[in-house]
């Protein structure tokens, strides 16, 4: 099967062509520079940029994938969740392309695409999807059948990285710069809270941690700059510890031997190392999405659609964007 995927849910304009589980091309045009001046994503800016770039990005993916739209088996596009005016652009583009060439159009759930973007082996697994807008723990007895165990009750982990970076005067997006700073710092310098570590459920909370960092920054006053690396390292460790401990606890509770991690924050080297260490000790298999497929990309959208279509999924006919689409629990089994 040859599938073109399109993704415009937030601030990356992306298109990709996949065939039989392989990525033939992946074009991602990041808008980070346009949003950096505002310290975060401005929906109207994002939407205008998507519209400007979408045709060039799709053409690039088609050219690099050496495929004419005529030769596609389907077009897949992110339907939600995401920014409404940003989703609209990708969806209308996909609808036009599919209509012109008479191709099936597959609406894809952005978080489900993140969830399956790591190379998961068949069998049960626990997944941590940790991105700019979401932090979720998921249990899946088998691929395709998943149940959301818990998610953040306030800020997502990536959002916490972005907000802490902003309060430290560091550029957007915060994750990569905090990671860089943290590499030079002492992660035990400040004892930040580990929110909801022992909450007894599978939820997360990062806004209290953010407030604790703000308070410390306030107390440090002018010394903030000198302690930048320590602040970043201590904050990062607090996030990583909570993510690692809760993920491992879920894997143990549900007796699974496989953990899958994806989403933008899964780029974080410290999180990767901590999880690797713990999984090795516990004898668990750890599956990370490749770094280039952790942040938003259309390859994951096309791959998920391909998997589902090859299992006989019939996409709905009459549908629209769904900005607040929740990740539903599913019981259908998908094999790879």
């Amino acid at each position, binding site marked *: 099967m040859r599938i073109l995927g399109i993704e415009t849910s937030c601030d990356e304009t992306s298109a990709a062509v996949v065939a039989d589980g392989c990525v033939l091309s992946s074009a991602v045009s990041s808008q980070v520079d*346009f949003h950096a*001046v*505002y310290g975060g994503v*401005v929906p*109207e*800016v994002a*939407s*205008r*940029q998507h*519209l*400007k*770039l*979408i*045709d*060039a990005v*799709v*053409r690039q993916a*088609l050219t690099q994938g050496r495929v*004419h*739209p*005529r030769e596609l088996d389907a077009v897949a596009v992110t339907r939600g969740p995401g920014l*409404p*005016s940003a989703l*609209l*652009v*990708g*969806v*209308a*583009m*996909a*609808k*036009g*392309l*599919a*209509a*012109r060439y008479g191709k099936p159009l597959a609406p894809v759930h952005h978080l489900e695409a993140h969830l399956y973007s790591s190379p998961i082996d068949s069998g049960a697994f626990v997944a941590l999807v940790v991105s700019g807008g979401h932090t979720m723990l998921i249990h899946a007895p088998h691929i395709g059948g998943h149940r959301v165990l818990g998610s953040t009750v306030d800020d997502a982990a990536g959002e916490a990285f972005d907000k802490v970076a902003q309060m430290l005067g560091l550029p957007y997006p915060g994750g990569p710069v905090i990671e860089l700073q943290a590499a030079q710092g002492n992660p035990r310098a400040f004892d930040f809270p580990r929110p909801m570590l022992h909450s007894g459920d599978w939820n997360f909370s990062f806004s209290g941690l953010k407030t604790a960092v703000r308070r410390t920054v306030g107390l440090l006053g002018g010394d903030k700059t000198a302690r930048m690396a320590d602040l970043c390292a201590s904050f990062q460790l607090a996030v990583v510890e909570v993510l690692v401990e809760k993920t491992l606890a879920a894997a143990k509770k549900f007796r699974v031997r496989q953990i899958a991690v994806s989403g933008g924050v899964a780029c974080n080297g410290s999180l990767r190392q901590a999880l690797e260490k713990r999984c090795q000790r516990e004898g668990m298999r750890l599956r990370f999405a490749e770094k280039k497929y952790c942040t938003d990309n259309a390859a994951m959208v096309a791959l998920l659609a391909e998997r589902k279509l090859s299992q006989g999924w019939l996409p709905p006919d*009459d*549908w*629209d*964007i769904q900005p607040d689409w929740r990740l539903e629990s599913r019981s259908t089994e998908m094999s790879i």
Partner: protein
Amino acid sequence: MKTSRRWFAIESSSSQLSLALGEGETVLREVSESGNASRLIEPLYRRLGVRLEDVDFCVIGQGPGSYNGLRVGYAFLKGLLCADEMPVCEIPTPLALAAQAASQLKLSDGDFLALNDARREEIFGAKVELRGGALRQAETRVAPPSGLEQIFGRSFAAVISYELKVEDFPFLAGTPWLCLFPTASATGALACRQDFSRAPALSSLGPHYVRVAVPGRSSA
């Protein structure tokens, strides 16, 4: 450019989405529906039954109007043409509205004022001049209602607005007030009169946004 060329047009700047197919100034078919453009555009396209292989150029209503409606129209067209080099012509929506008004009032001369709600207590106004059957967009401006008279004057053949009411513009009392939604057929027919043989690339086209994306910034 020969006037007998076949075109396909999209007008998505108002709450009434319309798509049309024409040849020269003759409209062959038109379909329209009011509602959510994102949901309606694909079924309407199918209902129009156009074969783009038989079309010489495409036309898109540029707005101003609903930002999301415009985005849907442009993105859908970009999807249709993603593997084509077909010329695309953008028509400012006030021109299409004035053409519709002139035809309804059977006028070949006169000035029209098209008004849109620009939000934040401001109005988008466009003055369109009709001279010997030819239309020209003379002046466009975003201003508070109280400033419009000074900018545009008060003498018009008609005022056109699909969302505002005459009561809110006392200086226009007595001027014929038409409630017209822009149509793809008027948009397409106008494009035939234009020479766009050196049409810009599709990726360089875009809607007319009445404001910058972030107030206080001139970029993006």
